[in-house]
């Protein structure tokens, strides 16, 4: 069962420290879940932690949601194997965050309740808008989940030597426990614990590497360029087609502002001020993490060696764990492996919760029950939806075993940037936006992104082994995002909606002032969101 046989390496062996750290993490997070479950009695607590998360806590949780095992292991591997090019990725993954801060965070916090559809549907007709928004959310969440689950199976197989299926089931079961019982309160704390562990682990590893180079990253880069040539410090083959890169860049930049599990986190803080501060903390933490990962990649190239890294995994994913073993022995390897596992768990929990919100809040409570469902029923449906999505994630993880799913994260970002972001921005900024415009924009964004990815070289040539692809770009963002904006604007102008533009003043007021004076949320009003109210009872302290 063990995939690795590098002489002397404990990688892929059931490693006592790894298992110990992993059990410790699962034990602590399940204890948090038990504590959170007792505090989770309403949908507001289940989906938004009762709005009682502080800005700093949410900053860590946002970073936890975003820093996946793929970015930790994948970028370190990419840097180890191709040097500078990994930095292009890191920069791309980070630049979406300022956009989230400037355009999305606080209007979203002020206008919505649990999902981004709350904001889009605010002054529009509930049913059609919720249906299309839920479609966008569930497509993004599904592709992102498949990528994470398949990645989880492979990584845990490599790290611990467990079989792929066992790994996927373990991830699924633990994640379901968090979400089902602890809701957003547990998920938030799992993200915080994971973010702290990941940042501490990566920092310690980088510290151990830099210690050998007199704490000078430049000395490390110099050593790498002496071993592998000066080209490791210069752009390589990653950017060969500028149009392709710009298209990917657009998807990354605006896709972050359309990721349902990220958007959902802004409802967990008490007000707009905390929302914007939390993105500032998150951006700092994520940026720092990417810079550290860059150092880890060079460290692995110099101290482990490219040949040894590709000997274990062609994609270079094991660069960081192997580096940990070289600088800190089996114990450190175990710690880093457990951190990678924890990282996967936390990310899939956040995704599942946001999918469950779309299913229960957007589809069940708003569309099926027209806002008439009593609280206990909403909570029950929310839990059923979490269980369903958790099981689905495990099934999809097993079904997609052995498939190349790396493109699915890019796809999720492309759909988020095309289906969710344009409708969200237009609903907040443009008076004449209409129900038909929103529906047309979201559906166009979803379908055009999926279709163009299906016709792209990634699917046609890499997966289906055809010789040509109808659509030349791997990422369709440069076409689909402007298209979704165009369709949304054109359809709104063609079919004006009087009520929508009349209610824009109300949207504007609430978007800036908060929920105090204007009417409460359109569906199932919450009385407890007036800004002057006392701090809501929730989980702010562990």
């Amino acid at each position, binding site marked *: 069962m063990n995939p690795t046989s590098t002489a002397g390496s404990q990688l892929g062996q059931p490693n006592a420290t790894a298992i110990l750290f992993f059990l410790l993490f699962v034990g602590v997070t399940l204890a948090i879940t038990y504590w959170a479950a007792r505090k989770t009695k309403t949908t507001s607590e289940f989906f938004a932690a009762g709005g009682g998360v502080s800005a700093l806590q949410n900053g860590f949780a946002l970073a936890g949601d975003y820093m996946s095992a793929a970015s930790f292991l994948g970028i370190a591997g990419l840097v180890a194997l191709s040097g500078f090019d990994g*930095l*292009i990725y890191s920069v791309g993954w*980070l630049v979406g965050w*300022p956009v989230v801060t400037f355009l999305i965070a606080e209007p979203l916090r002020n206008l919505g309740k649990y999902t981004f559809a709350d904001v889009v549907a605010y002054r529009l007709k509930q049913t059609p808008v919720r249906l299309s928004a839920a479609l966008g959310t569930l497509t993004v969440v599904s592709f992102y989940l498949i990528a994470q689950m398949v990645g989880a199976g492979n990584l845990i197989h490599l790290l611990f030597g467990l079989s792929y299926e066992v790994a996927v089931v373990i991830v699924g079961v633990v994640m379901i426990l968090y979400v089902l019982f602890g809701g957003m309160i547990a998920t938030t704390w799992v993200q915080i614990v994971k973010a702290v562990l990941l940042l501490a682990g990566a920092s310690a590893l980088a510290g151990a590497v830099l210690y050998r180079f007199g704490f000078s990253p430049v000395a490390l880069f110099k050593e790498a360029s002496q071993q592998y040539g*000066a080209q490791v*410090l210069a*752009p390589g083959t990653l950017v060969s087609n500028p149009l392709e890169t710009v298209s990917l860049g657009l998807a990354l930049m605006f896709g972050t502002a359309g990721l349902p599990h990220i958007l959902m986190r802004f409802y967990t803080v008490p007000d707009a001020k905390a929302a914007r501060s939390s993105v*500032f903390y998150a951006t700092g933490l994520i940026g720092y993490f990417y*810079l550290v990962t860059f150092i880890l990649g060079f460290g692995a190239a110099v101290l482990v060696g490219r040949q040894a890294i590709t000997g274990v995994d062609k994609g270079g994913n094991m660069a960081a764990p192997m580096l940990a073993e070289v600088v800190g022995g089996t114990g450190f390897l175990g710690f880093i492996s457990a951190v990678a596992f924890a990282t996967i768990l936390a990310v899939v929990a956040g995704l599942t919760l946001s999918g469950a919100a779309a299913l229960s809040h957007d589809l069940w409570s708003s569309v099926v029950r027209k806002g008439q469902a009593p609280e206990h029923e909403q909570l029950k449906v929310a839990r059923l939806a979490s269980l369903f999505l958790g099981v689905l994630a495990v099934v999809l993880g097993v079904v997609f075993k052995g498939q190349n799913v790396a493109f699915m994260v890019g796809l999720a970002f492309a759909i988020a940037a095309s289906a969710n972001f344009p409708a969200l921005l237009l609903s907040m900024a443009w008076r004449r936006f209409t129900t038909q415009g929103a529906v047309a924009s979201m559906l166009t964004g979803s379908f055009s992104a999926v279709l163009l990815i299906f016709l792209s070289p990634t699917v046609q040539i890499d997966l289906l082994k055809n010789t040509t692809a109808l659509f030349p770009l791997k990422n369709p963002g440069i076409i689909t995002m402007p298209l979704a904006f165009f369709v949304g604007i054109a359809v709104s102008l063609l079919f004006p909606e009087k009520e929508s533009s009349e209610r824009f003043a109300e949207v504007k007021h609430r*978007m800036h002032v908060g929920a105090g004076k204007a009417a409460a949320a359109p569906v199932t009003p919450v009385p407890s969101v007036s800004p002057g109210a006392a701090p809501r009872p929730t989980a702010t302290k562990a």
Partner: protein
Amino acid sequence: MSEPSRNDALEALASSRWRVAAALTVATLVAYFGFILLVAFNKPLMGQQLIPGLSVGIVLGALVIVTAWALTGIYMLWANGRYDRALNPLRR
């Protein structure tokens, strides 16, 4: 304060927020796509080493990351300070 003047004040604040947000978004776009286009079209420059081991590309890449963070910081300071202070009297 009478209703119309409250509305005017809010209107002015709202447009100032969108202006600041749009300007900072454009700044982020310029920093990021400037970096990407340099990577795409001027590889020799990006590979040039300022001191042995430190290439222009690495410095600029790290700078984009720091700039992105700094821009969110500028927004936060502006919004938590001036913007919120102006907004407070409009809250009830």
